[in-house]
């Protein structure tokens, strides 16, 4: 099972399974501890300069935007970041917080290429871009979530995405097939926004789950923001709906409309006006700065942010939402 090929990209966050086990043994309490706190406290306690951090989301859906803004507000810097990002990584790039990227996709979906990404990468402000597919980055977290050093896949093969990744190709010893081995991705910090959680961190999600299951289990520090904080009895009544058990979680933040300007399944619709405002603003550094001044630095916290957006507007987004029925 010799190495047939390997990507020339930097392994930005090399996996150390024994250290991860030791961390999970000594740093993650098995007790039901009240972890409910403000986003200020959560971010200042668990996000740090130079940490390897990821956000869980898809497109503009179920993004941990209130936490994303707080990370900027606290001027965390030299972040090493993975993903898949639309609104949230765009803000971090525009704010100049990102040093290295395990990149899968950063763009504006139908609105095209990200101006913030172009500026940050083409200027060299982002030192490294290591390439992966959406599947690959999720599978890398899945490997970490399984507690194994790598996972074999049949994607990435033969492409420059592989050549500029940190993956390897070997012959499978059972079938002889060439397979791509993806290294486990253990994050220093994960940020996940959910529909409901209890104060201990037990979290449940409605609809698709993206890669929340995998990222929660792959993160050494996990901050959960939730639209609703529910009594533990609610969780215990439907344990088969729990995606994230409490012992994985370090902080629980109550964040109604926490995905704004993105959407939240069954709860509220995307705020296209504010989203488009960002897209326009992000075309120039000055515009991006003005947007950050208005929506991030200009408000003390998520509560003030929601006041800025306005109750009337939020009510409309709720009315426009998709419902399970109909």
């Amino acid at each position, binding site marked *: 099972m010799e190495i047939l090929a390997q990507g020339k990209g930097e392994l930005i966050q090399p996996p150390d399974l024994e250290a991860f086990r030791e961390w999970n043994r000594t740093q993650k309490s098995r007790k039901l501890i009240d972890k409910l706190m403000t986003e200020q406290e959560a971010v200042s306690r668990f996000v740090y300069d130079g940490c390897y951090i990821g956000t869980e*989301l898809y497109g503009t*859906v179920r993004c941990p935007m209130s936490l994303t803004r707080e990370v900027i507000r606290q001027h965390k810097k030299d972040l090493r970041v993975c993903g898949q990002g639309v609104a949230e990584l765009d803000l971090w790039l525009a704010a100049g917080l990102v040093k290295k990227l395990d990149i899968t996709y950063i*763009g504006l979906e139908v609105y095209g290429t990200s101006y913030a990404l172009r500026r940050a990468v083409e200027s060299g402000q982002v030192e490294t871009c290591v390439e*992966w597919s959406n599947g690959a980055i999720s599978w890398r977290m899945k490997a970490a979530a399984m507690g194994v050093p790598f996972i074999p896949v049949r994607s990435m093969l033969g492409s420059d995405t592989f050549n500029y990744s940190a993956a390897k190709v070997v012959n499978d010893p059972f079938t002889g097939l060439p397979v791509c081995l993806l290294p486990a991705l253990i994050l220093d910090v994960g940020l996940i926004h959910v529909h409901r959680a209890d104060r201990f961190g037990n979290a449940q999600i409605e609809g698709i789950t993206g890669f929340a299951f995998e990222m929660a289990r792959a993160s050494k520090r996990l901050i959960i923001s939730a639209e609703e904080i529910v009594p533990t009895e609610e969780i215990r009544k439907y344990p088969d709906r729990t995606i994230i058990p409490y012992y994985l979680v370090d902080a629980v933040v109550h964040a109604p409309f926490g995905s704004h300007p993105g959407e939240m399944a069954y709860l509220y619709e995307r705020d296209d006006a504010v989203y488009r405002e960002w897209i326009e603003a992000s075309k120039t550094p000055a515009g991006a700065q003005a947007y950050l001044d208005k929506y991030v630095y200009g408000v003390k916290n998520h509560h003030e942010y929601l006041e800025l957006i306005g109750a009337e507007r939020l009510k409309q987004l709720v009315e426009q939402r*998709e419902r399970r029925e109909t």
Partner: protein
Amino acid sequence: MSSQSYSKSELMICVAARLFQDGTTAFIGTGIPMLAAMLAMKTHAPNLVPVFEFGGTGAILEKLPRAVGEARTFHKAIIASGICDTMETAQRGFIDYGFLGGAQIDCYGNLNSTTIGDHDHPKARLPGSGGGNDVGSLCWRTVAIMQHDKRRFVPNVDFITTPGYLSGVGARERAGLPRGSGPVNVVSTLALMDYDSASFRMRLVATHPGVTVDDVIANTGFELIIPDRVGTNEPPSAAELRLLREEIDPERLYI
């Protein structure tokens, strides 16, 4: 046939929609593929099963999804799971079609959506693979949707983000990609292309109305195979246009 006027994107959507076979599964991304899938489901392919990367399979698309992963992508779906499940479903051979796009494509259908110029010092940093590499690796058949000009149809892409036939016949299998998978069509702003079964090189199938074979050749940066018979794509029918404008995208987000 209709004499109604229609936009380029309306035509591309119709040409793409006609490629779907009924009773197949397809990875659907945002934009033209979503509209094409909805149009196909409302016309010749009612049993098309839309699969959305982040977990929605078999949704009933009553309203046009505007973003990948939004609630409409799993509205009344048969399963709402996560990205690993859908990608692994493709890896097991359950996804028949995938749609792809990019800034560059070569004669083997390799796609670039990562960088223009050198990767480490790019002239332009593009979004990256996203699910593209997985879709191009794992689905049975992929269709590329492209703007058609010489800057995009190039002899060599600057970066192979998503594998087409790589260097040609047998190259996918040698790389370990699933046997029998690969690109089957390109729907561009000028024409419909497929791939020659002997050489796996791109071949012109039919031009859009008003577009000549020479127009296509003049806008293609590599040697496109031109068969003896080149067809002309049917313009959008009155029925197709009505569905697109009244039922699928009444707010005209895309058309």
